[in-house]
């Protein structure tokens, strides 16, 4: 049910009628009818590649529909750029934030439309107008703080304020919490509620079904570009959503944990590792064991991963694979059998302008080439085989940038499967991945462990860590502050250790 509106915000009723869209002849959206009621939170769920982002991009003017109509407040609209949509009151909070890190909060909010006096930016007026917008939204932000150092959740608030300052009444958020730690995600949830309470409409795309059910008034399910149904969130449960998205039921999100033999040898031993952001870490992983690294964003989990992988220089400490010392040099750590699936697929993982095929085979070209000469037949088969295992269908000669976010993540995972490794480090392996495919990735991780590969999983999703790992290490300030095993592996213990002040956890490794 829509929240009651506050008088001064313009209301916007956005409607899609029979909207269809194809890319290169392949339909990705078919005949979509949808109404976004003003003052409500409307969630959009569906598998990776279902067409959620495409749909939102049509509304926000980034793409044009091939057929059908976009109707805003009863008028047919033909946006040819995001700018035109913004002028009509439709704004998108992109997942990759578009702020200027060197500028302050207020400057970012009014970027490009600063109040001026005789050509000079009027700082007093800037601040006054900022406080006005901030007060109306209920956000508590320091206008003079420099954006660069702020946490992602606060930066998102700045983006939202920027949208509000430009008079946006429909705000589209495409997976806004995918990269947020739980605490920050909750902050963003409050923001979404405030926006709806102020009469604005929020179109929320998310793979976290709990979040969807808690926030949304209405949920729309897409599958393979088709509109499955739109229903009040109150009528849905996680199970009904999953069934609608996948077209089948999913008994459990997590696979059974593989058994680790008591006498399983140690594959990884790290002693007193010091590196940028890593302040003396010792840990070990046994063959077939899945170890979770939990902690807050910025606690140093990714830094530990990179120090082990050798992608940053190590100041001191030893990393040993099967007892043999492993120098900090990626080609050599790869040869020793360590593989890192890095956290940010766009910056650290994929070469976006290259074909899917090239991307998935990149880390082990030796397998598909003799003496530096690529055997294209083998390349094609290797790529197809890897993509099948990570369930990415379609022509692999397309650029990887044409894939949906979740499928890009799976391509990156596919690289890890090129050959049998000894240690697999997966940094946020399911970021932006839908429930069904998430299960596919969990299955892959478990399969790896069953083959005797040690796995180190980093995740901000506590449930994921608990559901996958045999043992959890909690990281804070570049150190391991707690080791949890068996019955001690609870959400509460992880969160306490991740937040706690040194006194309560001082004794831990």
């Amino acid at each position: 049910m829509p929240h009651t509106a506050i008088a001064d915000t313009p209301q916007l009723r956005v409607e899609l009628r029979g909207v269809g869209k194809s890319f290169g002849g392949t339909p990705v959206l078919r005949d979509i009818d949808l109404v976004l009621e003003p003052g409500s939170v409307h969630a959009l769920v569906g598998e990776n590649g279902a067409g959620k982002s495409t749909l939102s991009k049509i509304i926000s003017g980034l793409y044009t529909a091939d057929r059908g109509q976009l109707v805003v407040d009863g008028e047919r609209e033909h946006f040819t750029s995001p700018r035109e949509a913004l002028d009509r009151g439709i704004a998108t909070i992109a997942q990759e934030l578009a702020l200027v890190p060197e500028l302050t909060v207020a400057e970012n909010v009014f970027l490009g439309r600063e109040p001026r006096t005789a050509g000079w930016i009027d700082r007093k007026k800037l601040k006054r107008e900022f406080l006005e917008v901030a007060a109306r939204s209920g956000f508590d932000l320091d206008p003079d703080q420099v954006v660069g150092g702020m946490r992602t959740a606060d930066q998102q608030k700045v983006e939202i304020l920027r949208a509000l300052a430009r008079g946006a009444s429909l705000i589209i958020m495409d997976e806004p919490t995918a990269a947020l730690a739980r605490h920050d995600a909750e902050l963003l949830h409050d923001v979404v509620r405030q926006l709806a309470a102020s009469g604005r409409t929020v179109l929320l795309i998310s793979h976290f079904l709990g979040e969807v059910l808690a926030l949304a008034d209405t949920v729309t399910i897409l599958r393979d570009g088709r509109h499955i149904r739109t229903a009040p969130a109150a009528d849905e449960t996680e199970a009904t959503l999953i069934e609608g998205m996948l077209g089948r039921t999913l008994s459990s999100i997590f696979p059974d944990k593989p058994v680790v033999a008591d006498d399983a040898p140690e594959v990884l031993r790290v002693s007193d590792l010091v590196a940028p952001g890593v302040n003396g870490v010792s840990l070990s992983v046994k063959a077939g064991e899945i170890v979770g690294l939990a902690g807050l964003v910025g606690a140093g989990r990714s830094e530990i991963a990179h120090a082990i992988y050798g992608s940053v220089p190590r100041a001191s400490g030893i990393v040993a694979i099967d007892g043999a010392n492993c120098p900090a040099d990626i080609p050599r750590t790869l040869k020793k059998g360590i593989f890192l699936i890095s956290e940010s697929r766009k910056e650290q993982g994929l070469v976006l302008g290259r074909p899917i095929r090239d991307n998935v085979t990149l880390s082990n070209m030796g397998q598909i080439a003799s003496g530096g000469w690529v055997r294209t037949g083998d390349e094609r088969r290797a790529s197809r085989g890897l993509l099948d295992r990570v369930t990415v269908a379609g022509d692999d000669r397309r650029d990887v940038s044409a894939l949906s976010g979740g499928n890009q993540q799976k391509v990156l995972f596919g690289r890890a499967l090129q050959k049998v490794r000894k240690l697999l480090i997966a940094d946020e392996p399911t970021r932006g991945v839908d429930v069904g495919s998430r299960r596919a990735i969990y299955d892959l991780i478990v399969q790896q462990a069953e083959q005797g590969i040690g796995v180190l999983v980093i995740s901000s999703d506590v449930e994921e860590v608990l559901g996958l790992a045999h043992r959890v290490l909690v990281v804070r300030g570049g150190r391991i502050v707690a080791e949890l095993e068996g019955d001690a592996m609870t959400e509460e213990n992880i969160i306490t250790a991740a937040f706690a002040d040194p006194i309560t956890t001082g004794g831990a490794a």
Partner: protein
Amino acid sequence: MSIETPEKTAPAPPRAPRSGGAGEQDALRAFLRRVPWRSVAIVVPFLAVFVALSIGSPAFLSAQNIGNVLDRQSGILIIAAAATLVLIAGGIDLSVGATYMFTAVVCGTIIVRVGGETGAALGIIVGILAGLVIGLINGIISTYLKINPLIATLAMSFIILGATKLVSQFGKEGVGQIRVDVPEFRWLALLKPLGVSLPTWIAFIVLIVLGVVLWRTTFGRYVYAAGGNAEAARLAGIRVNVVRIATFAIAGTAAGLAGVIDLARTPSVPENDAIATTLTFTVLAGIVVGGTSILGGAGAVWRTVLGILFIAMLYNGFTLLRIDPLFQGIALGVIILVAVGFDAWSRTRRR
């Protein structure tokens, strides 16, 4: 589990335009949307100018004219193909012109000083090796020493031109230029196996080899990855610096080879820095007009070949049609802007 849209409808061939406004327009629009604009970009104007010149000037399509153009362009084609690898790997080489000049002078000086067949052989080998060494230096300072390749090779370009003058003092007899009009050396340019000049043959082979290296080898994949996303490439286990140095080394060697070949064609080295600068600019112009991205990560050797030949054809056309050569520079500048603008447009083209 099906993740992507299930229908694998092969892109339908463009339908014959139907009569009746809306349908025709839709079909046309669908066709235009499906054309991979970025990949055809250079082909269309290249063919257009080729056909236009063939019609406009009977002399153009003669075997002699085409042969001359190719012979004269062989050096620049070799350099541009190699410099394409540098650009794709995420670097840029502004010193190819200077290197070309330097290697020609080194080669010429050795031939003058040593003389005979030994001198010619030694000149050719040392000239090419000098290019390789310069390329390695370029590569090392722009990777391990972390100096931006634009600046690094710009600085190197001045250093190399200075060194060229230093060396040439030993090769000059009296005041004139270095002249190497000796048969022991000039066969390199004068031989015509199967009626095609040896420089054209060499260029042809080099282009094929570089094109195939980029297209079908592990190294080629690494070149694209290094330029497309250096950090991702590094984390995937590619030694990005080594790959980049290799591309610079290839470019240097190519400049050396071109310097030696052109010396054999001319057969003297004029004392003029502007020739080096113009060469560098023309190489870059050809690469860009062909459609290789200046940002790295995308491009191909065949594109550069078309780009360079397009420019050459244009100049040739100006001469044949007796248009004031004054306008050549202006025309080329406009073409570069159009090419780059088109590239930007096709990149951001709305879906």
